[in-house]
C-alpha cells in the first residue's frame, strides 16, 4: 500500500533496541547502581512501568499503522494533543542530543594524536610552568572545559561560537542526514552497524578491563548492595525515571517504528525482548565501566602513595625502594611516632582507596573526564580512545534515528507537506533546521543549556505524556477494544498482567513518580554547577542559581509539549459544541 516497511523482522527489533539502548545505559545506569548500591529496585520499575508502556506503544503503532500524531488522532480526536506533544519532545531532544554526539566526535578525531591531547597540560606564556587553570585542576578537566567547551563561568554569559564545535556539529548532522535520508530504508541498513558495534566494543572493554589492576575493587564496590539507601525516596524516584527514559518511551519514535510493521506481528514478544535486552545491556555495560573506574581509583591511590613516599624518602634521606606501597603504613606509623614534627611538616595527603572509588560522576563527566583519564593510563591509549568514542557515537546515533523518525513519520502523514516534495528533501530540511537551531549549543554557555534541556525537556513532559497515553488507551479507547486489537495482531488475548498494569498500576505509578518529581524539584531553587577558574574553591565547581529568565525557559520547555494535550482537547470540544449548535 505504498507505506515503507522493514526489510526483515531483525531490522525492526534492532532499531527498537538501538533506540532504547543509548548513552544513558553506559553513563547513567552504572552511576545509579553505584550510588544506590545495586539495581534490584530497577527490576521492579521495569516490570510495572517499563514493559507495559513499551507493549502499549508498539501495539498502538502496529495496529493503527501511523506515526504518533496520526495514531493518537485515530484513538480519539481529544487525545490528539498527546501525539503533538510526543512530536514536540522528539524535536527538542533531537536538537540537544546531537550536540552531545558532537562532543563525542570531537574527542574521536582528537584521539589520533600521540600523545593524547588530554594527557598533557599546555605550558603557560613564559614557559616556566604549566598553564595555571590546567595545573590546578587536571589535564583532562582542562581539555574538556577549556579546549572543547571553552565554557563560560556563568549561564548568562554566552561567550562566542566555538568554530571547532560548529564543524563537528555540521559533520554530525550530515551523518544523521546520510543515515535517515530515506527514512527507514536507510536507517534500517545503518542500524546493523550502529546497534551491533557497541556490543563488540563493550565486550573488548570487558575483557581488557577485567585484566587491569584494581578492577576487582571497582566491581566489588559496584555490586555490594547498600541497603540503607533503599529508605531514601530519591532512590526509588531515580529508578523509576531511569527505566522510563532508558526505554525511550513517549517519544513517538517507537510508535513510528512499529507502524512500519506488518499488522500480524507479535508485539508482546517484541516488547518483552526489547525491555530485557535494554536492561541486560545496562548491566553488561556497567561491568567494564566499573572495572575501568576501579583501575583508575587504584592508579590514583598508588600515585598518591608514591608521592608521599618520595616526600618521606627525600626528607629522611632514606635509600630508594626502602619504603614500598605495601609497607608504607608501617613506615609511616613508625616515623610518625619517632619524628612527628617532621612528618607534620611534610603535609602528606591521606590516601584512601575508598575516597578515590567514591569519586563517581554520571553523564558527560564519566565519559569525557573520568574515562579519558583512565584511557591515558592504559598502554595503547589511542586505540582504546578510538574504540570508546566510536562506541559512544554509535550508541547515540542509533538513538538519534529513533528521535528523527519520531519527527519525520508524523510529518509525512500530515497532509501539510505536498506529495511532490521527495523524502530526501524533507529529511534534509529537518536536519538543516535542527543544525541551525543547535548552533546555540556551541556557544560558551552551551553545555549549561544542554543540562537545562536535558533536565526539563527530556524528563517531566515525558511523564505527563506517558500518563495520558496509558489513561487514553485504558479508559478512552477502552481496554477491551484494545485487547481485541492486540489479540487480532498477536493471536492471543493479553493476559491478566497486562490488563492490571495498563488499567491501574502503570497510571498510578506514573502519577506517583510525577508528583514526587515535582515536589523534589520545587523544594529547592534549581541550581547548576559552574566551572569558574576565578572561584576560590577552584577546581571544585561553583554552585549557582539560575536567573529568573532561565527559569522561565525551563518552565517553557516543560509546558511546550504538555500544553498541547489540553489545547487540542479544548479545540475539539469547541468544534463539537459549535457543530452541534448548527
Amino acid at each position, binding site marked *: 500500500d505504498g507505506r515503507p516497511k522493514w526489510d526483515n523482522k531483525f531490522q525492526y527489533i534492532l532499531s527498537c533496541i538501538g533506540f532504547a539502548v543509548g548513552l544513558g545505559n553506559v553513563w547513567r545506569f552504572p552511576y545509579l547502581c553505584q550510588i544506590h548500591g545495586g539495581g534490584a529496585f530497577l527490576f521492579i520499575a521495569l516490570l510495572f512501568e517499563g514493559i507495559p508502556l513499551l507493549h502499549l506503544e508498539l501495539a498502538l503503532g502496529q495496529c493503527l499503522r501511523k506515526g504518533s500524531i496520526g495514531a493518537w488522532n485515530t484513538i480519539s480526536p481529544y487525545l490528539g494533543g498527546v501525539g503533538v506533544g510526543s512530536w514536540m519532545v522528539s524535536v527538542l531532544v533531537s536538537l540537544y542530543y546531537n550536540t552531545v554526539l558532537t562532543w563525542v566526535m*570531537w574527542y574521536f578525531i582528537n584521539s*589520533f594524536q600521540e600523545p593524547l591531547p588530554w594527557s598533557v597540560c599546555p*605550558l603557560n606564556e613564559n*614557559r616556566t610552568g604549566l598553564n595555571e587553570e590546567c595545573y590546578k585542576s587536571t589535564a583532562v578537566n582542562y581539555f574538556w572545559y577549556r579546549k572543547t567547551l571553552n565554557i563560560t563561568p556563568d549561564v548568562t554569559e554566552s561567550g562566542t561560537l566555538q568554530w571547532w564545535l560548529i564543524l563537528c556539529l555540521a*559533520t554530525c548532522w550530515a551523518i544523521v542526514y*546520510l543515515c535517515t535520508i530515506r527514512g527507514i530504508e536507510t536507517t534500517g541498513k545503518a542500524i546493523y552497524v550502529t546497534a551491533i558495534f557497541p556490543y563488540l566494543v563493550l565486550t573488548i572493554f570487558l575483557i581488557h578491563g577485567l585484566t587491569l589492576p584494581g578492577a576487582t575493587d571497582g566491581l566489588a564496590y559496584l555490586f555490594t548492595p547498600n541497603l540503607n539507601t533503599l529508605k531514601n525516596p530519591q532512590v526509588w524516584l531515580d529508578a523509576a525515571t531511569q527505566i522510563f527514559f532508558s526505554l525511550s518511551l513517549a517519544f513517538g519514535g517507537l510508535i513510528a517504528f512499529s507502524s512500519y510493521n506488518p499488522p500480524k506481528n507479535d508485539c508482546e514478544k517484541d516488547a518483552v525482548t526489547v525491555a530485557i535486552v535494554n536492561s541486560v545491556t545496562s548491566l553488561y555495560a556497567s561491568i567494564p565501566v566499573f572495572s575501568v573506574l576501579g583501575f583508575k581509583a587504584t592508579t590514583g591511590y598508588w600515585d598518591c602513595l608514591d608521592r608521599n613516599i618520595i616526600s618521606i624518602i627525600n626528607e629522611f634521606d632514606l635509600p630508594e625502594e626502602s619504603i614500598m606501597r605495601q609497607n608504607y603504613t608501617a613506615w609511616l606509623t613508625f616515623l610518625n611516632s619517632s619524628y612527628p614534627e617532621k612528618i607534620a611538616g611534610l603535609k602528606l595527603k591521606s590516601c584512601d582507596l575508598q575516597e578515590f572509588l567514591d569519586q563517581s560522576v554520571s553523564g558527560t563527566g564519566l565519559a569525557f573526564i573520568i574515562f579519558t583519564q583512565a584511557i591515558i593510563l592504559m598502554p595503547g591509549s589511542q586505540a582504546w580512545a578510538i574504540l570508546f568514542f566510536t562506541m559512544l557515537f554509535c550508541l547515540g546515533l542509533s538513538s538519534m534515528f529513533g528521535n528523527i523518525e519520531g519527527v519525520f513519520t508524523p510529518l509525512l502523514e500530515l497532509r501539510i507537506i505536498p506529495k511532490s516534495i*521527495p523524502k*530526501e528533501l524533507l529529511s534534509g530540511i529537518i536536519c538543516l533546521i535542527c543544525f541551525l537551531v543547535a548552533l546555540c549549543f556551541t556557544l560558551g554557555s552551551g553545555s549549561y543549556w544542554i543540562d537545562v534541556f536535558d533536565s526539563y525537556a527530556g524528563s517531566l513532559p515525558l511523564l505527563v505524556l506517558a500518563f495520558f497515553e496509558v489513561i487514553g488507551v485504558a479508559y478512552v479507547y477502552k481496554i477491551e477494544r484494545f485487547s481485541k486489537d492486540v489479540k487480532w495482531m498477536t493471536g492471543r488475548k493479553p493476559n491478566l498482567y497486562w490488563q492490571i498494569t495498563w488499567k491501574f498500576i502503570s497510571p498510578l505509578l506514573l502519577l506517583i513518580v510525577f508528583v514526587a518529581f515535582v515536589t523534589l524539584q520545587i523544594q529547592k531553587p534549581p541550581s547548576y554547577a559552574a566551572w569558574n577558574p576565578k572561584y576560590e574553591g577552584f577546581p571544585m565547581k561553583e554552585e549557582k542559581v539560575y536567573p529568573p529568565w532561565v527559569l522561565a525557559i525551563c518552565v517553557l520547555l516543560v509546558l511546550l509539549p504538555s500544553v498541547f494535550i489540553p489545547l487540542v482537547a479544548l479545540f475539539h470540544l469547541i468544534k463539537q459544541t459549535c457543530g452541534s449548535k448548527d
Partner: protein
Amino acid sequence: RISNVLVCNVTDRVSFWFVVTDSSKNVTTVPGSEVEAAIRMNRNRINSAFLLSDKTLQFLKITSTLSPPVEPSTPVWLIVFGVVLCLIVAGIVFLVVAGIQQRKKKNKESTERENLEEKGEVTGTLENGIPCEALDLKAGHINGVFAADDERFTSL
C-alpha cells in the same frame, strides 16, 4: 686533577657542591646566577652525562623548565575531520543521485507503459494477443467441454 675535589659532609645520598671556574679569565669563579641559567638551558645534557633524569638528579633551587609539547604544523584533528567529512559528503551525494535516477527511471517506465497501451489501440484491437479479425465474434463457437453435460446444469 684530584686537587679540584674536596670531600666534606658525608650524606646518605650522593651529593656535591660545585663551583665553575673560567680558566680563560684568570681562574675566577663564574657567578651563581650565570651557572644557574646555564644549567637550566643544558639540563638535558647534564642529566644524560650522569645517565640520570630530572626526577633522579636534583639541583636544589633550580626548577627544570619544561619542553613544550610537539605540535605539528597542521593539527592532526583537522586532517581526520577532513577525511570523515569527505566520506560523508560522498555518501550523501551518492544516495541523492541514486534517488534522483530511480525516480527518473520510474517516471520513464510509467510513460513507456502509457505509450504501449496507446500503441495497442492504434495497430488494431488485440484480444489477449490474438488480433480480433481472426476470432469469429459474430458466429460464436460452442465449447464442447461444457456443452456436453446437460444434466450438470441446474434446471430453472
